């Protein structure tokens, strides 16, 4: 049943991609794509309901054998038969993910109908979007690392195509390429991690890995190595340190794409993967710590960069990186459910923010620079309202979804005793609130800094765009209540539902401590919002400017993204190209040179130059060849034409023959 979920988007992509692109009207294209997304969502809901009713914790459905069995000699010396089936796995974790993917996906499909209405490549766009949904669902449902990897790379491909959707722009196609290649670096880790598991366990089946780990078949060191390699893949896909640089650039894509792929779904694939392999990560311990620390550092680090960005979408991009850091904190302290909970709420409010930002951009006919916005509150009030909801949610304003999920993560971090992680998380939360409201204030408050182009007045978006926004706003508000913690009288339903898959995790905090922590984060968030208000509304951004001037070096460093892009460009890309040039030089000069016999000896044989024109020298082509030709001309000189020379040669021959014969005798 649940296998149908990815089927619809696939069909939608195929229909639009093969037929729609040629013959369909825009309406038909839209209907196909949205219909596919809708049916997929319906199927996801149905499957979810089915899972709730079922007593089974997980359903596995195998379609067919993908890679037939091969013998593998594992680390322990035993022979395993590695078989990879095209099989799917549906449990509470997958259920949450499919609902998020198809639900948010459906809304974004609808939104796109309006946003992309004037684009020439309408069918191509929707075909890619459907294809993405399909790939993401494969990633989520895959029952083994192989199938997961199909989705993993599939979403990467779609991301590549959608970032570079407006391929005439060089920046767009560059960004797409950068995203793909950075992800490939992550895949390098993913593949090696998979290889290590094959070697260690002889299986890449997720259930099989879990069973083997629990059965004690894996050494701790091996587990750590495998987990870290896989996590390298996760950092690529989820834009964490050190592979985060592609995500801000990815904003070159259409805004709905940013919302769906680069906020709500694809970038959380790494989070999902770690959660999916929680047994492995938990067993290692060390790996889990690395995950938590990476998440915490990324959360703060990315937030600092969001402080100084002026491109509305780039702020959101850094925010996404930061928020995914939070998710990894949750996973890293063992609170898998909390991490996934945040994943879900983040999907609501971040896609809301992106789509709302898209609405702003739409209103201003493509303007993305916040320095040329301001005062939009009055001009596009509906967009403003939903944007504000999203900003409050992400800031952890009490009662909104972000508050619950973030709080649960921070509480778990504190409970795990990793206070550094907790402290970083708290700081990150405060920073989040600050830059989000910096964004709100710069965009919607103050004076209007934009110039209206003639014939394109600032306009509110059409309903087809606003309705999804409003739905998402509602979700961003109420989405947290399914995981309402016990402290606040909830039953933590979401956590318990997920713990059917991830196993129980007790925060083990005293209610008092928990309340205190909650208060701390609320205070941090509210304080940060207030600070933003003072700086950007009351003082019209003056303090920020003054700060930038006074600490110019620091400001520049942050603005230039800590020069990491430059560093990567110089060291890695530059290194590869330098190596490429060297290799190319070797190829042309050394190897072919040796072969071509550029050796001066051969060149000096002047007769050859006369004999062979340089263009078509069959003999001289080849290195050995040139040497031969030189030898040849020597031999020719020996052939003098004189009888007495020849006669001497004959006598020499006689002597030679006799000498050789006598020598052996």
């Amino acid at each position: 049943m649940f296998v149908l979920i990815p089927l619809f988007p696939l069909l939608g992509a195929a229909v639009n991609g093969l037929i729609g692109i040629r013959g369909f009207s825009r309406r038909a294209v839209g209907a196909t794509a949205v219909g596919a997304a809708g049916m997929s969502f319906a199927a996801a809901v149905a499957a979810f309901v089915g899972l709730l009713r079922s007593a089974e914790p997980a359903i596995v459905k195998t379609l067919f054998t993908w890679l037939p069995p091969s013998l593998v000699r594992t680390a322990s010396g035993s022979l395993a038969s590695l078989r990879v089936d095209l099989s799917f796995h549906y449990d509470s974790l997958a259920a949450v993910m499919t609902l998020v993917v198809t639900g948010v996906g459906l809304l974004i499909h609808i939104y796109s109908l309006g946003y992309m209405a004037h684009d020439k490549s309408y069918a191509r766009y929707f075909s890619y979007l459907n294809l993405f949904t399909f790939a993401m669902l494969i990633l989520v449902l895959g029952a083994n690392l192989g199938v997961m990897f199909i989705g993993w790379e599939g979403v990467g491909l779609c991301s590549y195509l959608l970032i570079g959707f407006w391929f005439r722009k060089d920046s767009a196609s560059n960004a797409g390429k950068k995203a793909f290649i950075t992800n490939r670096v992550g895949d390098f880790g993913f593949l090696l991690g998979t290889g290590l598991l094959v070697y260690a366990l002889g299986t890449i089946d997720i259930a099989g890995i879990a069973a083997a780990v629990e059965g004690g078949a894996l050494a701790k060191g091996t587990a750590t190595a495998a987990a870290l390699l896989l996590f390298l893949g996760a950092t690529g896909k989820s834009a964490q340190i050190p592979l985060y640089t592609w995500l801000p650039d990815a904003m070159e894509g259409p805004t709905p794409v940013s919302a769906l792929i680069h906020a709500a779904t694809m970038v959380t694939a790494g989070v999902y993967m770690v959660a999916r392999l929680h047994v492995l990560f938990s067993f290692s311990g060390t790996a889990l710590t690395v995950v938590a620390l990476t998440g915490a550092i990324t959360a703060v680090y990315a937030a600092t960069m969001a402080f100084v960005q002026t491109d509305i979408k780039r702020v959101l991009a850094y925010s996404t990186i930061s928020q995914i850091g939070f998710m990894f904190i949750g996973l890293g302290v063992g609170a898998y459910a909390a991490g996934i909970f945040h994943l879900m709420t983040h999907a609501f409010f971040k896609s809301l923010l992106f789509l709302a930002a898209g609405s702003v951009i739409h209103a201003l006919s493509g303007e993305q620079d916040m320095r040329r916005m301001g005062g939009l509150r009055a001009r596009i009030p509906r967009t403003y309202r939903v944007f504000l909801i999203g900003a409050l949610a992400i800031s952890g304003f009490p009662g909104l979804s972000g508050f619950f999920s973030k709080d649960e993560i921070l509480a778990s971090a504190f409970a795990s005793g990793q206070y550094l992680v907790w402290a970083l998380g708290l700081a990150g939360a405060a920073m989040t609130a600050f830059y989000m409201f910096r964004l709100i204030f710069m965009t919607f408050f103050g004076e209007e800094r934009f110039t209206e182009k003639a014939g394109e007045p600032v306009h509110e978006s059409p309903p087809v765009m606003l309705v999804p926004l409003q739905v998402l706003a509602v979700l961003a508000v109420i989405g947290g209540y399914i995981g309402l913690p016990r402290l606040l009288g909830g039953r933590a339903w979401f956590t318990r539902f997920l713990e059917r898959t991830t196993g129980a995790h007790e925060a083990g905090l005293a209610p008092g401590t928990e309340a205190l922590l909650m208060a701390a984060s609320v205070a941090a968030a509210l304080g940060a919002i207030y600070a933003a208000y003072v700086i950007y509304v009351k003082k019209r951004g003056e303090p920020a400017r003054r700060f930038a001037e006074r600490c110019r070096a620091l400001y520049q460093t942050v603005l230039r993204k800590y020069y990491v892009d430059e560093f990567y460009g110089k060291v890695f890309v530059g290194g590869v190209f330098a190596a490429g040039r060297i290799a190319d030089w070797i190829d042309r000069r050394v190897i072919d040179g040796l072969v071509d016999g550029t050796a001066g000896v051969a060149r000096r044989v002047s007769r050859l130059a006369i004999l062979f024109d340089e263009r078509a020298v069959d003999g001289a082509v080849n290195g050995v060849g040139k040497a031969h030709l030189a030898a040849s001309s020597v031999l020719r000189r020996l052939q003098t034409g004189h009888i007495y020379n020849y006669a001497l040669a004959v006598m020499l021959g006689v002597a030679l023959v006799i000498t050789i014969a006598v020598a052996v005798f």
Partner: protein
Amino acid sequence: MIPIEAVIVLGLLLFAIGFVGVVVRKNLVVMLMSLELLLNGANVILVGLGRRLDSPRGTIFAMFVIIMAVSEAAVGFALVLAYFRQKKSYDVDALDDLKG
């Protein structure tokens, strides 16, 4: 009786003189004569050996060689003459159209 060694040395001497003549002299006719000397050197050895071994075969062999030498000389002269008609020269150094 003359020792066989002396006969052989004589033959070899003749042979060597003939060879040196072929190599050193530049006149084709002289070279032709040197060739005859070569063959006669061999003949001396053959006849000497035949006597020493008390076998008629040596002499018979030598007679065959003489016959062959005659025809060779005839052919050789014919070729040299044909060449002379074209080049008006007996100089062996002129024979270098074919080389390389």
